[in-house]
């Protein structure tokens, strides 16, 4: 049963007075899935995670874990375990005692407990550090201890509250790969809360993007990146050129629009598309526009003038003014052909795939 729901969020609202931290959320998370809750701070993602863990209660609606309603079940009796943002390593216990903390209640025999602790420590590459004191650990090691302490409980769902945000960039990227690998190995449902879109895109099977207590879109990383339902989602997941358009034909599953600069375009209707008169918004990601060098040509081209150039090492960010468009295009170009040397004021041609143009709600 690969598509069985492990977590079901049914019409869950959490209000503080008149403020709704979470507003009528509905979500189904599958068994064995790496699921991310992505959004800016204050969007309700942490509130939702804490309600799944049992540290917070919904004002209305219900949460089911593995088919069981969780109403009135306290955090210590839920089949979930959490990796806290601050890691919450017990400072008075050593690594082994930290990892064994939850096992103590199960009254396993000493050999079995030791075997499970060692197994968990090996899983997070901390074998041999069991006797190390909690205060003698580096940030990365603390994070691994927190992970081992939760995984040793063999929870049905592992909850991760911004687990990588306190690590430096290099370690964070390494841990992203490791976390993903670990999740594949143990097959436990992981729910990750993050405000870092790259983290969510790199690790998840599916992502829920949240804004202001509402879930805006739930989809696989590629889908969410390439076909965002609205401008907010598009913007949050990275750069996006928004192009004004007029609807010419709106029938069936696709729409035809006339755009400023990109001519007539036919595109799929987005899932949450709301028709707003005859105006529409079309978007194209900066890296889906590529500079055409020398006499190279493309089926679809647009020409413009370079007005700004920002160098980022492996890529260069170009701001290109296109005649007839109300705002300049931003273009991300790799530096292998000399985009970093393009003089300001140069006229360039940009090639694109019409499939990269997507319509979205405002």
């Amino acid at each position, binding site marked *: 049963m690969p598509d069985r729901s492990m977590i079901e969020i049914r019409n869950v609202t959490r209000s503080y007075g008149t403020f709704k931290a979470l507003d009528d959320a509905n979500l189904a998370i599958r068994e064995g899935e790496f699921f991310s809750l992505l959004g800016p701070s204050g969007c309700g993602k942490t509130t939702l995670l804490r309600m799944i*863990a049992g*540290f917070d209660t919904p004002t209305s609606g219900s949460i089911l874990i593995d088919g069981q309603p969780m109403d009135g079940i*306290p*955090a*210590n*009796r839920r089949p*979930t*375990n*959490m990796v*806290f943002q*601050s890691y*919450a390593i*017990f*400072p*008075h*216990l050593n690594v082994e*005692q930290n990892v064994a*903390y*939850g096992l*103590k*209640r199960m009254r396993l025999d000493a050999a079995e407990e030791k075997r499970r602790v060692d197994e968990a420590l090996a899983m997070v590459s901390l074998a041999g550090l069991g006797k190390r004191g909690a205060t003698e650990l580096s940030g990365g090691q603390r994070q691994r201890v927190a992970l081992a*302490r*939760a995984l040793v*409980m063999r929870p049905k769902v592992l909850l991760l509250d911004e687990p990588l945000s306190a690590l430096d960039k290099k370690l964070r990227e390494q841990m992203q790969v490791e976390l993903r690998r670990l999740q594949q190995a143990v097959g436990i449902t992981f729910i990750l809360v993050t405000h870092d879109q790259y983290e969510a895109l790199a690790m998840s099977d599916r992502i829920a993007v949240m804004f202001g207590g509402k879930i805006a879109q739930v989809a696989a990383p590629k889908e969410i990146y390439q076909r965002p339902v609205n401008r907010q989602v598009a913007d949050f997941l990275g750069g996006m050129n928004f192009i004004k358009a007029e609807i010419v034909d709106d029938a069936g599953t696709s729409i035809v629009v006339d755009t400023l600069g990109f001519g007539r375009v036919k595109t799929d209707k987005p899932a949450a598309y709301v028709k707003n008169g005859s105006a529409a918004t079309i978007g194209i990601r900066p890296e889906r526009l590529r500079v055409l060098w020398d006499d190279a040509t493309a089926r679809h081209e647009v020409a413009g003038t370079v007005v700004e150039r920002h160098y980022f090492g492996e890529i260069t960010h170009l701001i290109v003014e296109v005649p007839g468009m109300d705002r300049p295009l931003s273009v991300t170009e790799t530096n292998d052909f000399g985009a970093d040397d393009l003089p300001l004021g140069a006229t360039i041609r940009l090639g694109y795939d019409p499939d990269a143009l997507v319509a979205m709600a405002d």
Partner: protein
Amino acid sequence: MTAAAEGSIAYRKARQNAKPLLQSEAARGFALVSPTLAFAVVMLLVPILVVIAHSFWTQNYLTVDYTFTLEQYRIALTEPIYRDLLLRSLFISFSVSVLTVLLAYPIAYYISFHGGRHKNLWLFLITIPFWTSYLLRVMSWKVILGYNGVLNSGLLGLGIIDEPSTALLYNSSAVIITLTHAWAAFAILPIFVSLEKVDRTLIEAATDLGDGPIRSFLRVTLPLSMTGVISALLIVMIPTVGDYVTPKLVGGKDGVMISNAIQAQFGKALNWPLGAALSVSTMLVVSAMAAASVLLLRLLVRRAR
């Protein structure tokens, strides 16, 4: 990496050659504490040395015989009266400190965990009794515990007792009750401070790992607030052994403590050497008791894990 390591070695060498006396961290720290330290040494260490010296001498009516002797210690430790007084003082101070900590912990816990916005108000309220003199507070306990006192009248009025009880005042329990009340704030504050420092996510983590409220308290909150409990215990235990005002006012003849005897030796009896020997013995015994209590407490907490 290696460059940084070499850099720090080079830096250390330069420091060794320069020998900047007042520039070093240790010297600067020492300079900061030295006025207080000097004061403490003069006002604390010197009197203690004087007392210790006296304890090895003998009083001959108005003069002191300076020949070294352990006679005063023999009297202090073997005379039944002093032994009994010392044991009673230890019992009273031990009971007071344990009772005070037991009563103070829930209050400190409540303020720290449920005080919300009113934490400072609660702490302020706790200090209010200190606005009146200690003597007045002891006197008010006399009013409460006395023969025609509040407690007796109340119990009579409720028909629980037929005649006023004399067991309330002028005995060691009266001393224990009064001292426990008097020292409560000194126990609440250190416990409160240590509870404030307990990271609340640690308690959530314990809950997440399957602990109910009682287990997470015993396994996380209590061990992490142990420094506060130990300081509270010591803050109460050590001074209460030497208290002589409270036993004098509410203790009667059954509540007399060792310090009343010490005071008598330094005063009316004019036997400083014996008073000094009693003081030193008390000091050593109470230190041993305090150390034993701390060790026992640490052991108990380790067990609770």
